[in-house]
């Protein structure tokens, strides 16, 4: 039985009751055509995105094929920038780091985010407050919170070293950021800390759509908590999880600010990601062509991820 919609929302519809002077004026009448209206409505978006995304993209491809530097209009050099980067040992390190960083950070964010979502899905006192405060790392500007982490990892005054020393876990300080391997893991920890709430809250929204009867039925059939998670929750949560993971991979793979603040790519260029190395070459050194080429190395991976996402969306619509 359909509700009479106009009657149900009296207040809103009353505005549009026929009034002689509200007839479309000559100027606005052309907007009655769906096509024309669509053009008018979409124009601002298309102009802005065209000027500041499509045009820079094309211009970036051109830059990467030229030897342009700041104050120096370059000429075409073919794939020279790409092959030069490929043979550069710092680039190779940054390339490996980017995959390593994305892989582990995503795994941790997914595992911890899922765990936190399951915890938050239960009812307890103060739930709203806990949920709201859990999102803080995601709200607070990354640069500012990363500074707090950098101070916590300080070589001389690290509170974490103090804590581990006092509790008897370590005798000597851990060189958190003064060692490349440790530095990379520290960055993964901070990235996980920052991104986990996003996973938790989105997965929580997914969890809330799961009918509790399903769990009840499963436990009546003798399934324990672990089995209920893998047989009931996980299959139903897969679509949301895939989307969240795709978003997170894109953001982590192209991450810049966290590394820039935490290690600056150091010590000795051992913790660079593609984005921070592109910045160092393209902006700090001023070699625009080479920098543009380095950041374009991100494109194949991003392309694959976006393609997976689009295919998935298509399948949902079909």
């Amino acid at each position: 039985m359909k509700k009479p919609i106009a009657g149900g929302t009296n207040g809103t519809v009353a505005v549009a009751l026929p009034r002689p002077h509200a007839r479309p004026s000559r100027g606005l009448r052309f907007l009655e055509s769906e096509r024309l209206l669509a053009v008018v409505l979409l124009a601002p978006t298309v102009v802005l995105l065209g000027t500041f995304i499509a045009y820079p993209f094309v211009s970036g491809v051109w830059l990467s094929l030229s030897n342009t530097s700041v104050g120096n209009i370059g000429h075409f050099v073919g794939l020279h920038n790409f092959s030069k980067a490929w043979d550069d040992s710092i680039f190779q390190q940054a390339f490996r780091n980017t995959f390593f960083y994305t892989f582990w950070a995503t795994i941790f964010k997914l595992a911890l985010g899922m765990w936190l979502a399951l915890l938050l899905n239960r009812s307890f006192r103060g739930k709203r407050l806990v949920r709201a405060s859990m999102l803080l790392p995601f709200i607070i500007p990354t640069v500012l919170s990363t500074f707090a982490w950098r101070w916590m990892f300080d070589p001389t005054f690290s509170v974490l070293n103090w804590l581990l020393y006092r509790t008897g876990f370590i005798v000597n300080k851990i060189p958190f950021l003064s060692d490349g391997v440790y530095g990379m893991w520290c960055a993964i920890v901070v990235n996980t800390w920052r991104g986990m709430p996003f996973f938790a809250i989105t997965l929580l929204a997914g969890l809330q759509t799961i009918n509790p009867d399903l769990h009840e039925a499963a436990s009546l059939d003798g399934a324990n908590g672990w089995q209920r998670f893998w047989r009931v929750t996980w299959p139903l949560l897969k679509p949301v999880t895939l989307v969240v993971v795709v978003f997170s991979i894109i953001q982590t793979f192209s991450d810049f600010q966290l590394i820039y603040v935490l290690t600056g790519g150091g010590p000795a260029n051992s913790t660079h990601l593609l984005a921070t190395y592109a910045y160092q070459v393209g902006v700090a050194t001023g070699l625009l062509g080479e920098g543009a080429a380095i950041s374009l190395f991100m494109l194949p991976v991003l392309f694959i991820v976006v393609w997976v996402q689009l295919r998935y969306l298509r399948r949902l619509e079909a």
Partner: protein
Amino acid sequence: MVIERPWKRWVYFYIPLTVFVIGTLFPFYWMLITAIRPDAELYRSWRAVNNTPFWTLNPTLEHFKDLFAKTTFPHWLWNTFFIAVISTGISLFCGLLAGYALARLKFPMAGALGTSIFVTYLVPPTLLFIPLADIIRNFQLGNTPWALILTYPTFLIPFCTWLLMGYFKTIPKELEECARIDGATRFGAMLRIIFPIAVPGILSAGIFAFTLSWNEFIYALVFLSSPERKTVPVGVVSEMIRGDIYFWGQLMAGALLGSIPVALVYSFFVEYYVTGLTGSVKG
């Protein structure tokens, strides 16, 4: 429901949740305690006997005073706010119109256009900052707030469009049809019937866009150069570290003050923010 023994509830629920809460909030607590701790206590050997790192008995506002006396922090705060508000406004405007068109109107290429807006949503700023820096220079926009006000919408509009499009699709078409039978124009029906109903969606998109632009870093770092023009994140990074020396007290005071506005906005609109967040990944 499944019945639980008390000890199980502790092991599987209270303890893990407490660890999550402490782990999540500790860096913020550390920010606060560093900001109010006098220098003499900050730089003390980690093996010192009377070291009490988790609290201080001599809180001071010295670092905050230094922050205002020695840097142009208030300018950064204002710049960040101004840029975030204007770029959010532009993005909402564009996103509303585009979202409505994609959700409601039939026109050729609608599908392709929707897809390409979605693809731009997934293009990260770090892919484009080098050519964009060049373009900003050519447009004579370098070192002005307009460089950011015009480029932030590139990652905000796709998000707003996507979110609002989803919202418009949930509003029954009959509402508009009634209005049009009653003599409203297509444009008028959109403006007076559909947009007012979409206010919660607009608010969600707006809050989320505001926090995103407050958080933005790489464009601001590359496009701005004079100290008083900078945004909070860039100012803290580039103006508060002199040489190799980190003034941690001041840095944490700046980080704290720079986080408060966005945390306030968030705390007033948590529910809208969460809707925006979860909506940002749904189709």
